[in-house]
């Protein structure tokens, strides 16, 4: 690990258990739930300087810093979280937790079902974004937080929206990046292809594969490949790979990995199966697909009626998975509901991935937005 003054340094993932059962949106009573989380910075005496970061589809609690001296890569949002960074850990108590249904420490389908002593598999209940937020609420209450700012990109933005609506007295400010109040039919379609790849893998075994020799790796890898196509865009793929061949300047005339773009997708699929669980992928993509604030509240304006927070919404020009038009829908509904909102569409050739890459522009905007709420600024 390089010594970097702007890094939060070595951090430890902590665990918190919610012993009592939680009422899920589906009506099911579920528990206990373990939550994996990390915190950076210090909670102040008023307990009102917290920022809750909400990860995207396959993220985890490890948002910043390194888990050990030997860690090669920092947390998923390290560019944005640390001393002096956008989410300034000198000022804020930053919290990041793994989502319910995940596979990185928080209870999910790969966790042991206390009733059977075996992993839940498909006995895990179907969860929603609302359920994930319920679990996060228990965590921030446990940490003693009274007021907080919520921030997230992509699926994290959905959770941030849900937070602002579910806990209007607690949330002061909301940062929504490359997100939406409901996924497009196109977005659901891509998730469906991913789920189908997993479900039709012969090693899937109806979700009961944890003690088997073979795991549904191929299905999960294909799901990830499809996902990665949607995180990029035509321009970024062209810039990264073009039509170049992987090993020579000529085609192989076979069906092995030939093009660079094929090799990239193969690689993304391969590394993904080492860190992610196929069942979690099914559950979490489903939660994303179900999320629809307008349907739940009658209209998006109605959904925002009770929030007391200020909002910052950002989108990226080349993001076609969570397009600017969807961010604008959120912004327009917030304006209709008379809420304080700023919106910026950031020029970027990186597609949906931009929210993890374009950190310089985001830092400028996020810092200014947060500074507005700071008393001494």
């Amino acid at each position: 690990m390089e010594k970097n003054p702007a890094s939060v340094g070595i951090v430890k993932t902590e665990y918190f258990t919610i012993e009592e059962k939680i009422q899920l949106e589906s009506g099911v009573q579920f528990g206990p739930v373990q939550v994996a989380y990390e915190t950076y910075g210090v909670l102040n005496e008023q307990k009102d300087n917290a920022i809750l970061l909400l990860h995207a589809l396959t993220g985890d609690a490890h948002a910043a810093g390194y888990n050990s001296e030997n860690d090669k890569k920092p947390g998923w949002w390290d560019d944005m979280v640390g001393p002096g960074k956008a989410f300034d850990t000198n000022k804020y108590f930053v919290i990041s937790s793994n989502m319910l249904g995940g596979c990185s420490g928080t209870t999910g389908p790969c966790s042991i079902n206390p009733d059977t002593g075996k992993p839940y598999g498909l006995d895990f209940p179907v969860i929603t974004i609302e359920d994930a937020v319920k679990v996060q609420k228990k965590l921030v209450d446990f940490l003693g937080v009274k007021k907080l700012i919520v921030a997230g990109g992509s699926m994290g933005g959905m959770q941030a929206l849900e937070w602002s609506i579910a806990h209007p007295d607690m949330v002061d400010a909301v940062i929504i990046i490359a997100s939406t109040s409901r996924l497009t039919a196109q977005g659901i379609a891509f998730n469906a292809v991913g789920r189908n790849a997993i479900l039709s893998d012969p090693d899937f075994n109806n979700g009961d594969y944890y003690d088997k020799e073979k795991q549904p790796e191929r299905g999960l890898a294909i799901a990830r490949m499809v996902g990665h196509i949607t995180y990029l865009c035509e321009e970024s793929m062209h810039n990264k790979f073009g039509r170049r061949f992987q090993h020579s300047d000529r085609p192989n005339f076979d069906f092995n990995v030939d093009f660079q773009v094929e090799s990239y997708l193969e690689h993304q699929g391969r590394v993904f199966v080492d860190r992610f669980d196929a069942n979690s992928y099914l559950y979490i993509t489903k939660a994303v697909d179900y999320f629809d604030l307008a349907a739940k509240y009658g209209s998006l304006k109605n959904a925002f009626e009770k929030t007391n927070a200020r909002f910052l919404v950002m989108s990226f020009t080349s993001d076609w998975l969570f397009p600017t038009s969807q961010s604008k829908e959120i912004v327009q509904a917030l304006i209709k509901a008379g809420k304080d909102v700023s919106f910026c569409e950031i020029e970027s050739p990186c597609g949906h991935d931009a929210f993890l890459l374009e950190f310089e522009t985001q830092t400028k905007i996020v810092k200014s937005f947060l500074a507005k709420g700071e008393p001494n600024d």
Partner: protein
Amino acid sequence: MTDTKDSLHVNYSVITEFIEKGSRVLDLGCGEGGLLKMLIDKKHCSGSGIEIDQNNVISSIQKGLSVVQGDIDEGLKEFMDNEYDYVILNQTLQSTEKPDYVIEEMLRVGKKCVVSFPNFGYWRVRFYLFFKGRMPKSRMLPFCWYDTPNIHLLTVEDFFDFCKQRNINIKKQVYIKRGKISKNPFTGFLTNLLCEEAVFVIER
């Protein structure tokens, strides 16, 4: 009023004078947010801005303002009738695709509206075209014909006609010449000739 050296910002002072303390304002085409910030600081106004350019939006947010990136030519559909005390269109009317629609939308959303624009009837502009035979350039109109954002230039007389045709009341008017408020006592033809920039408060 002439204390500011930057003549382009005289209109900020003029508009700030116009607007009552504590008003709720919406600044269309707010640029880097200078005017909105002045209204909030000096007149304790609340409100927000709409701006099309990403860098200007970021500059505005950096000033602590609430600004939404957007194109005012698309209208103000998300805003309710009479939601604001003032809707401001400062030096932007001439750059809009649909100036008439933009003004109608302003009058719907704002109880009162402030509109300012460079006067194409100003004598120097007329002389430039008359003697040089080329599209006029000046401090107020610094662009070439091919790169100007000013696609709907107008004169003070044009604006009077427009308001009359559409039953829009002109509540106040201030004319600015060479960075100073013009004290000329004339009206009509001479005003149009002597004013470089006009600021109006209108309502319906």
